[in-house]
């Protein structure tokens, strides 16, 4: 991942990272037990305010470095597939959210 970029991490996201001092939200998207490698994870704030989005990695993985608080995770995949989960993030923690769609 380039340190000064704004884009997706090279090759998509693979789990797992240590949280360090960050508020990490990460997980994996699966369908019928297999990773969903083509799709997007969106992190939304209060009132569905968009915060960030990443393409899913080859293992269906995604990761966000959020601020502490309550967030909504929304997954979009081809074929109109979508799913939503509520998540809590805090500094120094890795919040795991696995999503089956």
């Amino acid at each position, binding site marked *: 991942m380039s340190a*000064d*970029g*704004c884009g997706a*991490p090279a090759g998509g996201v693979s789990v797992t990272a240590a949280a360090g001092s960050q508020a990490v939200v990460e997980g994996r998207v699966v369908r019928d037990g297999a990773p969903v490698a083509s799709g997007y994870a969106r992190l939304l704030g209060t009132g569905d305010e*968009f915060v960030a989005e990443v393409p899913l990695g080859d293992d269906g993985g995604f990761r*966000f*470095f959020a601020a502490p608080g309550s967030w909504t995770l929304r997954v979009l995949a081809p*074929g109109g597939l979508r799913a939503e989960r509520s998540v809590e993030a805090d500094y120094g923690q890795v919040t795991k959210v696995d999503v089956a769609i």
Partner: protein
Amino acid sequence: MSRSDVLVDADWVEAHIGDPGVVIVEVDEDTSAYDKGHIPAAIKIDWKKDLQDPVRRDFVDKTGFEALMSERGISNDDTVVLYGGNNNWFAAYAYWYFRLYGHDKVLLLDGGRKKWELDSRELSTDVPQRPKTSYTAGEQDASLRALRDEVIAAIGKRNLVDVRSPDEFAGRLLAPAHLPQEQAQRAGHIPTARNVPWSKAANEDGTFRSDDELRNLYQNEAGLDFGKDTIAYCRIGERSAHTWFVLHELLDQPNVKNYDGSWTEYGSLVGVPIELGDGR
């Protein structure tokens, strides 16, 4: 300029794949996406390796841009169709960049790579080989680019649009939430800037909102004075290129500049004013 002059949909692109005189270009920071599969016949441009000077913090110069275009097989008469990931951030940046160097026949694919993927349209791993050209670029169009002194002078006078997320604007985060937050520069925003996150201009599938929705967003909700000149900025200038595209190309506002130095420059300057806290 209107929407149909600058924006094409996926059906249009599908119908023009392989047309002589049409070059489809994927622009990304992470070009491994292109390598895994791209729109058939599309070539790639790497936002960083191809468009940024490898030493100084600046663009490649005119000669460098000419060499890049020539090497990729793009000629002055070609219609260049740009698309990319991240809701077209880097494609919008490249669009602005092509305009800076005077390439007028340039279009953006509405929704970019995401919409194409979510529609389950064809992706190819074949890498086309285009014959080299002899491209001639124009001089950089200074009317599209803001540099730091102009930005400082614009505080309280022009519209300043900070297109980052509300947490970055307020100073709670230094980068978008999908990136680590270790950057060292100061957090916050340029005084008098309005926070209109780029994402408000886009639908969930990455396509742009309608002209009426966009006008309402900037004029009524954000209170931008369309009678004034505008400078858009973000962190490194690609999200603000997305907003520059909306204001200058879709809404036809005449004097809109992108400040590509953006927060990574402004937030590191000594002695400039910085404001913290949420937008008004």
